[in-house]
């Protein structure tokens, strides 16, 4: 009788360890996947920017410095590694783009160009996607971090090689409300 109880307890513990381990691994993969989602959108944004710059270059020649700022911010963002550095570089890129979009307001002809409108819609959408993917990533990463610190899951954290995932922090309040730069529509309320 005693041995049966002992065996049952051991089996129970073993089952729990397996469950907790798998839970952590699954969360870890979700974090990796969440980051990949962001990465896809970042790459898309980096690809779109040269198109935009080339399209507006002719019309906005004397806004050279703004364009240069966008290009150099993009190049820095491409070179960035790690969550924190990427977050910082991408934040700067978002701001540079915001300034460029604000400037295009002064060029009605340019805004009316179909190509520019399309590029702006694409960039707006990509920016939104980055924002939403970031929310998802941060949610999953927070869950993962909490799980591996909580007792008793923390006992198997070492086994699952779990380490805290970095969150994508947003530096300034202005950026927190994902900037909606929308010049492409001239509908009421836009």
């Amino acid at each position, binding site marked *: 009788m005693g041995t049966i109880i002992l065996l049952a307890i051991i089996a129970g513990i073993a089952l729990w360890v397996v469950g907790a381990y798998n839970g952590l691994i699954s969360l870890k993969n979700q974090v990796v996947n969440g980051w990949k989602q962001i990465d896809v959108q970042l790459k898309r944004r980096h690809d779109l920017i040269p198109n935009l710059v080339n399209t507006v270059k002719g019309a906005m020649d004397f806004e050279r410095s703004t364009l240069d700022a966008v290009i150099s911010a993009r190049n820095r963002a491409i070179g960035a590694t790690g969550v924190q550095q990427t977050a910082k570089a991408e934040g700067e890129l978002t701001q540079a783009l915001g300034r460029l979009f604000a400037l295009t307001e002064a060029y009605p002809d340019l805004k009316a160009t179909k190509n520019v409108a399309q590029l702006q819609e694409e960039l707006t*959408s990509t920016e939104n*996607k980055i924002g*939403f993917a970031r*929310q998802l990533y941060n*949610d999953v990463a927070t869950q993962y971090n909490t799980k591996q610190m909580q007792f008793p899951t923390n006992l198997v954290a070492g086994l699952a090689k779990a380490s805290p995932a970095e969150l994508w922090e947003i530096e300034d309040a202005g950026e927190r409300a994902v900037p909606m730069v929308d010049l492409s529509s001239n*509908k009421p*309320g*836009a």
Partner: protein
Amino acid sequence: MSDDANLFAQQQSNRRRSTWLIFGFILFFAWVGFGGDLAFWLLTADAPPGSYHHVVPFIGIVSILSAAAICWYSWRHGAERVLWATGAWELIEPATPEQKQLVNVVEEMAIASGLPRPRVWIVPDADPNAFATGRDAATASVAVTEGLLATLSRDELQAVVAHEMAHVRNLDVRLMTLLAGMIGAIALMSDGMGRMIGRGSRAGGRWAGGRRGSGKGNPLGVIILVLWLLTLVVAPVVSRLLAMAVSRKREYLADATGAQLTRNPMALASALEKLEGATAATQSISQGAAHLCIVDPAPGLMSSKEGFLADFVASHPPIRQRIVRLKGMAYQQAKRETAGAVSPP
């Protein structure tokens, strides 16, 4: 996470309700079938030998089989039928900037809700409206009218799509699509049976003749027959009321979840204001699918009224109340943000 727990509970409840709905539907058809059989059996029991005796309950057998077939069909093809009935076409290659924007917005909301991208459809109708349908997230479709694309700004469109994605994520779409299929079937059955009975009695009625001949109608048989006919008459109305009751509760929740996805309750509030302002009816969407839409496609007397009766017959809560709740959410959000809290709502 409490959000996840809520979501899970909501999905469970929708799964459970879908099962009960199918069960109730088949039970209803069983009553329609076997009730009819029983009435006719009682009525023909005393008939003189040689005339018709209703012994084999074939109405019941046929109606249970057809109920099962309808459930299976609604489950497998309900979404397609709903889309087909509205005349929607699937947006695969966006041609205009507006269509491109719609696809982009749907993709954004798919990311925000962590679901696969649903199929996008456009309903050729000038009145702004939108709905979602499907069995689960993998088979979901989001449809918007041309009028919606023309009236709303990008943020508002995003809010409406977020509302629809919330229905998809909560699995409301499963229950609602099943209901749409069943409402259609019940309306059809009630129509057909009514016509059959009408023709039968006009042709002289073997039943009536038999009864008069024997001199005494079986009173129990008559009562059951009356009850049975009553069910047929009332069923389409009751099924529609049921759909509306189910839908009403889910609209507030989808509004709230949608606002959480976009983190922008004001956009949905202003979208709803615009939808309320468009008073024309959405012609392409029939009453049978009204409960799927973001706002009632036939804004009759009730869509803007409040009160008990309006609550009872409207498929959607009064838009005013929904807007007030969303503005409340926006106010809470603004308060939190000025307080410097970084945590999402």
